[in-house]
């Protein structure tokens, strides 16, 4: 193996490509290769290739190989990679408007959220990245968030009072859990299995996919399929580089992306029942909690976050039914 093969590679840094030129893009993301996002990235690569007759290609760097999300964004800014799938959770630390997507119970199904990504307000949120020199191209969804509990069947938010729950360290998510009286903790993912097994935590905010791949069903008895939040990543690119691309190539990129995103949503939606069954078969009790139970928490969230920015307010107004 050698380091010598990068000469032939046209890295993204060579700007001003004319249409008709061969180009290999680099895309980085944080998930392992069995995750829907990686499959969507692969689909994006296939589409790029076929729509450009082999002229445009994609190299994928999965599983945080190139660093944390902060790194990936930085590398997109500097131009060493071309695309990143960056979670809205991370982006909301840089562009607070992305917190809008974490409105609890905003969307009943993945398809609904996927429709919402095409709306003007969603696009306005994307363009809030432009002042950072980043082009938010589109949203890509993973499975919705569910709640996993070790040995207490939570039926109402009141049951969550005092529970220690692992929640992604993102303010809107943690605020939602805090409003139920739970104590959210931002434990690193690799420690979660052991932490719930031994009782360091009583449960977690997760998606069905990771509950299966990380075998949390072995150590947690209850899975409440609340689908209370969506989990979008944002496909971002370097703005000036993207806008410097020939019109034709830009269209190929956005069309390919659209195809990959639709593919991911369709595939993941079809898996919902399968995942629930798989967890049941592995001894986890899968049940639902009515969104009505969370009325108080929803109102509290809407109120606090509507005050944070007019964009968030508009987003909540549009999608809260």
């Amino acid at each position, binding site marked *: 193996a050698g380091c010598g093969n990068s000469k032939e590679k046209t890295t993204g840094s060579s700007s001003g490509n004319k249409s008709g030129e061969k180009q290999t893009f680099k895309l980085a993301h944080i998930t392992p290769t069995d995750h829907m996002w990686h499959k969507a990235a692969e689909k994006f690569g296939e589409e790029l290739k076929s729509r450009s007759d082999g002229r445009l290609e994609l190299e994928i760097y999965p599983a945080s190989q190139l660093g944390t999300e902060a790194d990936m964004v930085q590398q997109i800014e500097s131009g060493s990679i071309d695309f990143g799938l960056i979670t809205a959770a991370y982006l909301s*630390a840089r562009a607070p408007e992305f917190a809008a997507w974490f409105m609890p119970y905003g969307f009943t199904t993945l398809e609904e959220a996927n429709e919402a990504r095409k709306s003007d307000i969603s696009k306005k949120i994307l363009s809030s990245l432009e002042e950072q020199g980043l082009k938010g191209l589109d949203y890509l969804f993973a499975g919705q968030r569910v709640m996993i509990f070790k040995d207490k069947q939570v039926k109402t938010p009141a049951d969550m009072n*005092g529970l220690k729950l692992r929640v992604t360290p*993102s*303010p809107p998510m*943690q605020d939602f859990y805090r409003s139920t009286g739970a*104590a959210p903790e931002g434990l690193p993912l690799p420690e979660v299995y052991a932490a719930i097994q031994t009782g360091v935590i009583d449960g977690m905010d997760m998606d069905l996919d990771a509950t299966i791949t990380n075998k949390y069903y072995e150590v947690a008895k209850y899975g409440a399929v609340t689908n209370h939040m969506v989990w979008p990543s944002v496909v971002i690119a370097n703005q000036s580089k993207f806008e410097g691309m020939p019109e034709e190539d830009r269209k190929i990129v956005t069309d390919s992306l659209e195809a990959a995103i639709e593919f991911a949503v369709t595939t993941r939606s079809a898996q919902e029942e399968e995942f629930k069954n798989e967890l049941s078969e592995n001894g986890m009790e899968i049940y639902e909690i009515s969104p009505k139970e969370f009325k108080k928490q929803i109102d509290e969230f809407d109120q606090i976050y509507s005050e944070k920015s007019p964009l968030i307010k508009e987003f909540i107004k549009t999608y809260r039914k």
Partner: protein
Amino acid sequence: MTRISDVITKIEEILMIILMAAMVIIVTFSVAFRYFFNSPITWAGEVSIFLLIWVTFLGGSWGLKYNSQASITFLMDKVTGNQKKILMIIQLLSMILFLGVILFFTYKWIFLPSVHIQKSSSLLLPMWIPYSAVPIGLSFAAIHLIARLSPASIKREGAE
């Protein structure tokens, strides 16, 4: 330069004491708060990592001043006298050159507008505060290495 390097060493040591003590206290308290008061300190993990990073760059710089970082001393043990001095000068110059390049890009990075809008995920602390460990620690390191280039220092180290 030697004087500046010595003053910096003093600053580094004081910071090491404060930051390290803070780290132990924060992590211990976060266990206690979770267990006895059932209310985790959500920012504890984040802040202790910031402390670890600061401590790394300060300690790393200190280690370059006293040449205490792991290296292969094979050749250095074999040679003596002028040969040893020349080897030391080559070592120092190449490290200074390296730090010069890194520092150029580090300062460019730390002053980027996009760095200034970043906030930490739980405390919402401006990220330039923890990020500054890189330019400050590496600048200190470069000063130490330049000070080690002085004839007196080369003579002393060469005699060891």
